[in-house]
């Protein structure tokens, strides 16, 4: 397990460089989408680390996407500021709501976050001003660094990888340090950690807010890459896909969601011809995976011992 943990990040680095070697427009398109989805999957991973499954992540992604898109397109603010807002607004919302909804665990929390995700999408659908309703938002300006737009797929991909790397290493540093000790205490034996002075609710709020912020960043990159967004991109299916990436990639290591993204994102792009049967096949594959996963799914959630 130790050696695996050391090799895998290097494999990821190699995988990240592959698109430059293959060098086609379509390759970079898929690679960019992998990077964006990897961020979303990473955001779910963080909530799993404290023993909670948040199903609202695509909703937070949507908030980041719409915020960044509307601020840059309509208020003319620079992309990087929009990106910052895309992180901050969902994080604030999650931090606020977290005070209430993090008091429950397990199933109830999953249900609540499911509803939250749905409610957010409904907001985008219902309020045609400013969200454009079902038609969404178009004409989103491209990613631009200090006024210079990135106009090639290679450049956009490089930026996405950069953001992913920053988020990944920031998470890793925190998890290896003292916050990691607090979080592992909460996940391993919450009653014990609390009896020794660990503010379980406070820490889980921070993690929930951070995961929402990361999802928001993912949304902003998505919006500015595609140039248009619509509400259905941020519904529960997107969250479920991100969850599946965690299941497939493994939840023990921080690189797990990245691996899951690399494995899963290209699939629909490759089987685009069988659109009508796509969902059915996806569902069946997932069922088989779930039924025959070697360790069972007990490992997916670091459950706090009470």
């Amino acid at each position, binding site marked *: 397990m130790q050696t695996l943990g050391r090799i895998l990040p290097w494999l990821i680095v190699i995988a990240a460089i592959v698109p430059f070697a293959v060098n086609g427009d379509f390759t970079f398109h898929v690679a960019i989408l992998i990077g964006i989805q990897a961020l979303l999957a990473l955001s779910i991973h963080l909530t799993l680390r404290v023993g909670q499954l948040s199903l609202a992540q695509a909703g937070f992604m949507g908030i980041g996407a719409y915020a960044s898109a509307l601020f840059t397109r309509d208020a003319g603010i620079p992309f990087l500021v929009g990106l910052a807002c895309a992180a901050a607004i969902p994080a604030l919302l999650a931090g606020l709501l977290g005070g209430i909804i993090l008091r429950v665990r397990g199933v109830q929390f999953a249900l609540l976050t499911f509803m939250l995700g749905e409610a957010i999408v409904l907001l985008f659908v219902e309020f045609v001003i400013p969200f454009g309703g079902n038609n969404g938002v178009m004409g989103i300006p491209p990613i631009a660094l200090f006024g210079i737009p990135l106009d090639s797929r290679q450049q956009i991909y490089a930026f996405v990888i950069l953001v992913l790397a920053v988020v990944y290493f920031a998470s890793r540093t925190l998890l290896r340090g*003292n*916050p990691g*000790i*607090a979080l*592992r*205490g909460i996940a*391993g*034996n919450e*009653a*014990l*950690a*609390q*009896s*020794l*002075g*660990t*503010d*379980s*609710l*406070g*820490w889980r*709020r*921070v993690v929930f807010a951070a995961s929402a912020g990361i999802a928001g960043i993912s949304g902003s990159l998505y919006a500015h890459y595609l140039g248009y967004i619509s509400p259905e991109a941020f519904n529960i299916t997107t969250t479920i896909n991100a969850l599946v990436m965690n299941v497939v990639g493994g939840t023990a290591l921080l690189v797990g969601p990245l691996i899951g993204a690399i494995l899963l994102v290209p699939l629909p792009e490759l089987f685009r011809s069988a659109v009508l049967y796509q969902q059915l096949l996806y569902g069946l594959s997932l069922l088989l995976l779930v039924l025959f996963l070697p360790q069972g799914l007990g490992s997916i959630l670091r459950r706090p*011992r009470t």
Partner: protein
Amino acid sequence: MTSPQPQLVLENVSCHFGGIRAVNGVDLQLDTNDITGLVGPNGAGKTTLFNLITATIRAKSGRILFAGRNITGLTPDAVARLGLVRSFQSPMTLPGVTVREHLRQAALFQAIGRPSFLLRRRRIAAAEAQARRTADAVLDFARLAHVADEPADQLAYGVQKILGVAMAVAAGPRLLLADEPAAGLNGAETAEMERLLRAIHEELSIGVLVIEHDLPMVMRLCSHVIALAQGTVIADGRPHEVRGSRAFIEAYLGSEADAA
């Protein structure tokens, strides 16, 4: 018994589950100068009272004060940060973590327990160094040095319970609350637990409150005994006073007669 030492005061504390009053209008005071024992027959409300003090459950009415500060309604971790640290009746460990590391983390949680510490990075370095020293010191104090680098969840039951008390010590409490520390321990382990609790009080000047069923141990160890029955205090004073009180004898004899 008046002293400048922090006191734990309960004023008319009640709590019920369903229709049953588990704790009914309890008034008590204890001093961190004493080792206090909380005794009573099964179902007397000792564990409930304990859980109320440690904020594991919420009181329906009444107030709990520690060192003059109202701690009613706080979260368990807030109470722990104020210096009231408990150990558990069953061994509580973190999976895959060594004994030494348990103690180090116990010492560290006081500093890193709240996320706001992220804003105060400089003080943490000092806390980390101190935590290492504390872990080493407590390892010796609790006589756990020989298992320092073993995974705690694989140790014997009795050793894990000693570790539980040791972790509470590592957290630097002013009052240590031990929930049936001797439960499930054999004779030798019980003697060691007794030694540890006495040493905590005498050498570290930490107040101790124990719930215990082992009456002889309580009478040997404690300087202040509070007896509960059916959710109310029936005797409160020095061990020989409580042991001789009629209410206490009736409560215990009554329960023994029922058991016979």
